[in-house]
């Protein structure tokens, strides 16, 4: 199964233009293993490749930035970035989705994956790669557990620029030690961006 998928993917990748890879994507390192870990009852998954450029273009980018409350910045955060979306199945039934984003951290790239149920609520939180002095804390189960059950509505009033959310909101309850500093805010921005993109790519289209 893995070989068939790899073979198919390889042919697709080989056939498309190299321009597609002008920006770096965010894939699970070992999807066969990671999908089962994040969705223990899953029996299979399908991989989709999306980008804002192909999904909605400049209008969508403007909408995403507005919802995020921050602009896309730097060399690597742009309209062309390819996003990998994993549709998770149990038999023919869709269990949920796994989607990751790259985020610039203080000392290196951060890859934040969210496992979402069919309604868009976070089932599991996973930082695949992180270079930080607080990497151990931010990648811990305890830190990740704080995101369980939250969705885009909870993050709507979170500002990535100030790193603040309204008092008493579910997001304001997410804490990390002061040592985590900028990387904590980077992770929070990545989670909000991830949820917005999932809403743009999947949930809002399903509602229509």
């Amino acid at each position, binding site marked *: 199964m893995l070989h068939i998928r790899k073979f198919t993917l*390889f*042919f697709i*990748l*080989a*056939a498309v233009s190299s321009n597609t890879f002008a*920006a*770096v994507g965010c894939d699970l*390192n*070992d999807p066969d*293993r*990671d999908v089962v*870990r994040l969705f223990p009852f899953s029996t299979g998954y399908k991989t989709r490749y999306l980008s804002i450029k192909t999904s909605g273009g400049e209008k969508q980018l403007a909408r995403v930035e507005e919802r995020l409350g921050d602009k896309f910045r*730097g*060399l*690597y955060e742009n309209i062309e970035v390819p996003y990998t979306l994993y549709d998770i199945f149990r038999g023919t039934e869709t269990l949920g989705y796994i989607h990751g984003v*790259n*985020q*610039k*951290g*203080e*000392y*290196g*790239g*951060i890859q934040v994956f969210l496992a979402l149920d069919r309604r868009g609520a976070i089932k599991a939180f996973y*930082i*695949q*790669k*992180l*270079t*930080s*002095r607080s*990497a*151990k804390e931010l*990648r811990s189960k305890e830190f990740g557990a704080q995101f369980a059950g939250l969705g885009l509505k909870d993050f709507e009033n979170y500002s990535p620029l100030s790193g603040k959310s309204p008092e008493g909101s579910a997001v304001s309850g997410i804490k990390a030690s002061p040592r985590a500093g900028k990387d904590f805010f980077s992770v929070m921005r990545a989670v909000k961006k991830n949820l917005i993109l999932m809403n743009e790519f999947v949930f809002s289209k399903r509602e229509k």
Partner: protein
Amino acid sequence: MNIYSVAYKNLLRKKTRAALTAGGIALSAWVLATLLGFNRGYENGLNRDIDNMGFQVLLTAKGCPYEAATLMLKGGTGLRYMPESVVKTVYLNPEVEKVTPMLMQGVFDPNKGENGAIAAYLGVDALTFPAMKGYLEFKQGGWFKDNNAYEAVMGFEAAELEQREVGDKLLIPGVDKELAVTGILKRSGTQDDGTIFLPIGAVQKIFGKQGKLTGLGIKVRKDADMAAFENKLYDLPDVQVVSMAQVKTTIMNLVNSARVIVLGIAVIAVIIAMAGVINTILMSVMERYAEIGILKSMGAMPLDIFKMIWAETAMLCSVGGAGGIFLSFLTARVSESAVRYFLPYAPNGALIALDWRICLFAFLLIVVGGLLSGVYPAWRAARVRPLEAIRIEGEQ
């Protein structure tokens, strides 16, 4: 109506059969052109990779030569250390134009992936290394100037993965040292794209390897006797000499063994296609026995019949050959990716280098092969006796 238009119309009478035969020829032309393109592309790529290294000889601490060669081409160096004093010793040789010392270090980063991974850093000399790697261009910033500065230059892909830009900080996990990014390289299509370059003095200090190197790149003068120079280097204690010429020969020997097998398969494919041509044309001759007899009774000479049948063969082979070559262009990227997937080492750049000479050669080979296959059916057709052919047709 001339003989060629008759031949063309004859082919159209059995369209499926003609298309299948042309398809078989196209497949063999595709295999042939792709393989010839691979032969050229692989060697070109290997030469380019070696040229891009900037040096012709690499000195490492003693170890396995094949492993060292492979590691080197993949951007790594030796796994043991040699003293820094070797730089001076080597530089005393008149054959040497430039030398550049290197120190590769890796640290285990537990926060890369589920089980962690190795993060590698290549310490290079700020003065000599950039001069040897003249082909490297910067997307942002430039090389570090001080060999002891805590700075870094990142290859294109390494920078993308770490989302770094000039001015950003980079943390070496495990040793907890911060570096400032001074340059981001443009994509070069070489192993440098995934490399993080640090000043060599800083790497020695950070990892506690003062006075040690893992590699020494040597650029030899153009007029130097390479063999004699290599022999001198062999006399140095505890170092291993990896010559790029040796690396190339070793890799080409390995690839050649595989290439002979694949070329054998290509020859079989061509033979099968030629057998298909004989079968198709011969069948066509048999079916038109009486017709050929009538043509001869109307004054057609044996040479005319021979030319007509041969023209059919030539048309089939030309269409099939041209189609196969077109297909090889169309699928070059997929074939290239397949080769990369299965080969343990593949150089950067285009692996399947198709040019007009390769295409012309493959086309001519297919057409000549096809024409040779068509000799027997054409000869049989030319020998048809008109009365006998008409009588046999009448009896049927």
